[in-house]
């Protein structure tokens, strides 16, 4: 993924509608903002604030051949491979989560060469997004050197610091075509507020050329303006606002719900016993067949939703 020339970054940004206008739209309308082949960055990390609802919409819309990037990839990576959404994921770690162990699906796809898992260090992913967010072509860093992780990726440069003579790695900026970010609340203009763990979301939003926000709740602009410290993504970077309650399920959303462990255990069992064929059935049942997002959540079930929400609110109990 080569560094985007500054001219391209400026021209693309200039061409965007950055005005204070309402951008609330449906899952389907938001999915139409993503083109086959786009580089799409996913917010959140592992099982937390994963933009599941947006991924659900993209898979349903039949998007293909995306390059996906994320800090750490959980089972949404399996779903992307099996659905054809992506066969190239750039990330620092890829498995459903530590407690479930290796992803059999990721193994099947990458070991057979059907899909790529492009591995960068966690901080390198973060600094690449940050460079993109800052409008510079690279970020100097002191990690990854001496490892085979560095050997296997393209596009970095090593240099001797012109100030100190120290050996530095220059990490190439990432400016994703699209960022998908799930947040606790957002207004109709796209002012997005994130509570708790922020992961790499701010840098991803600032680096990307289009941003799709899914949000637990759409709130008034007045509510946003009452707590401007909590706004983490400014409206003018945002192109779509989609209300998606429980939009990270079965993953968690800080302060709103914890992971849906029953669902995650069931998914892990599917992949362990049936591999990609199991994932295909899961996609049919939960992604393609439901009429709408409520239909997706129905598969999880009300009892588990209540339980996850109860656990989610506990961060404010101390």
């Amino acid at each position, binding site marked *: 993924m080569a560094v985007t020339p500054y001219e391209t970054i400026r021209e693309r940004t200039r061409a965007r509608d950055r005005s204070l206008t309402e951008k609330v739209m449906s899952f389907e309308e938001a999915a139409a903002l993503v083109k086959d082949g786009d580089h799409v960055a996913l917010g959140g990390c592992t099982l937390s604030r994963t933009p599941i609802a947006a991924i659900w919409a993209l898979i349903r819309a039949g998007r293909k051949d995306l390059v996906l990037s994320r800090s*750490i990839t959980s089972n949404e990576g399996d779903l992307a491979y099996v659905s054809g959404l992506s066969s190239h994921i750039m990330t*620092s770690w890829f498995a459903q989560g530590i407690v479930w162990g290796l992803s059999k699906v990721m193994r099947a796809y990458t070991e057979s060469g059907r899909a790529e898992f492009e591995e960068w260090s966690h*901080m390198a992913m973060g600094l690449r997004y940050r460079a993109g967010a800052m409008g510079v072509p690279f970020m100097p860093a002191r990690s990854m050197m001496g490892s085979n992780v560095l050997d296997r990726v393209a596009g970095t440069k090593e240099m001797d610091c012109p100030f100190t003579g120290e050996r530095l790695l220059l990490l190439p900026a990432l400016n994703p075509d699209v960022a998908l970010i799930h947040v606790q609340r957002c207004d109709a203009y796209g002012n997005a507020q994130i509570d708790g763990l*922020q992961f790499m979301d701010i840098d991803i939003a600032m680096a990307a050329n289009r941003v799709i926000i899914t949000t637990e709740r759409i709130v008034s602009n007045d509510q946003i303006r009452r707590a401007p410290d909590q706004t983490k993504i400014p409206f003018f970077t945002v192109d779509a606002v989609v209300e998606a309650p429980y939009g990270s399920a079965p993953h968690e959303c*800080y302060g709103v719900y914890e992971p849906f462990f029953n669902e995650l255990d069931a998914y892990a069992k599917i992949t362990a016993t049936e591999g990609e064929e199991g994932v295909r059935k899961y996609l049919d049942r939960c992604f393609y067949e439901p009429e709408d997002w409520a239909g997706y959540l129905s598969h999880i079930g009300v009892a588990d939703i209540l339980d996850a929400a109860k656990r989610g609110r506990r961060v404010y109990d101390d």
Partner: protein
Amino acid sequence: MTTDLATPPADTKPYTKSQLLTISASRVLEDGQIVFAGIGITLLAATLAQRTHAPGLTILFEGGVIGPFIQPGELPPSTNEQRCTRRANMLVPITDVLLLLQRGYVDIGFMGGAQIDRYGNLNSSYIGDPDMPKTRLPGTGGGNDIASLAEIIVATKHEKRRFVEKVDFVTSPGFIDGGDSRARCGLPYGGVKKVVTDLALLGFDPDTKLMRIDALQPGVTAEEVQDNTGFDLVIPDDVPIAEAPTATELAILENLDPERLYTH
């Protein structure tokens, strides 16, 4: 939950291999240090250290958590979800918590890996030829950054298939090819401080950076350690025996992990 017990000396309680590992790792930590912990054993080790000899030790999680408070019986299942933020002092973006490593604020990182070699290099990416791997593993996460920028403690079961002559892939650099090769690669700080296993505590020769037995776990012989290692260890003439887990350490640990989720 398990009967996999190491042989305890007569004057202590019985303990499991996981308890031994955890307690040994906790003893390597020092008061006042700032420590990147993972989940499970490494988090238990850091918390145990806080409650014994290192009350001023600070835990970091790579999800962006500074100074969380670990509640007995409620160990977080990951380093990136809200359970690991419990009563934290501060939450920051991932990139910023990792940059603490680069800035030099972090003393110790806890690491694991599928393979470790004689220079302490760790592999968590590929088993076999990376171009045609036998197994594609989950990858580095923050491991490469932690190993590049801070001293690390590796806590792992001691198995021959894990302790290999040369890792198939260097995910997280140890001392690379030994000698001063690590610094020459652009990594002047950090390195492997200690490899803690259920059989031994291992360090590295200061010059060659070859792995060396520093101490044996109680009831273990140097020969046994060598037999479970896929390369020749440096074995000094006099290898001390590590102190067995104390009743106090075991009691704290049982309090922290009463269901023995991680110390079975």
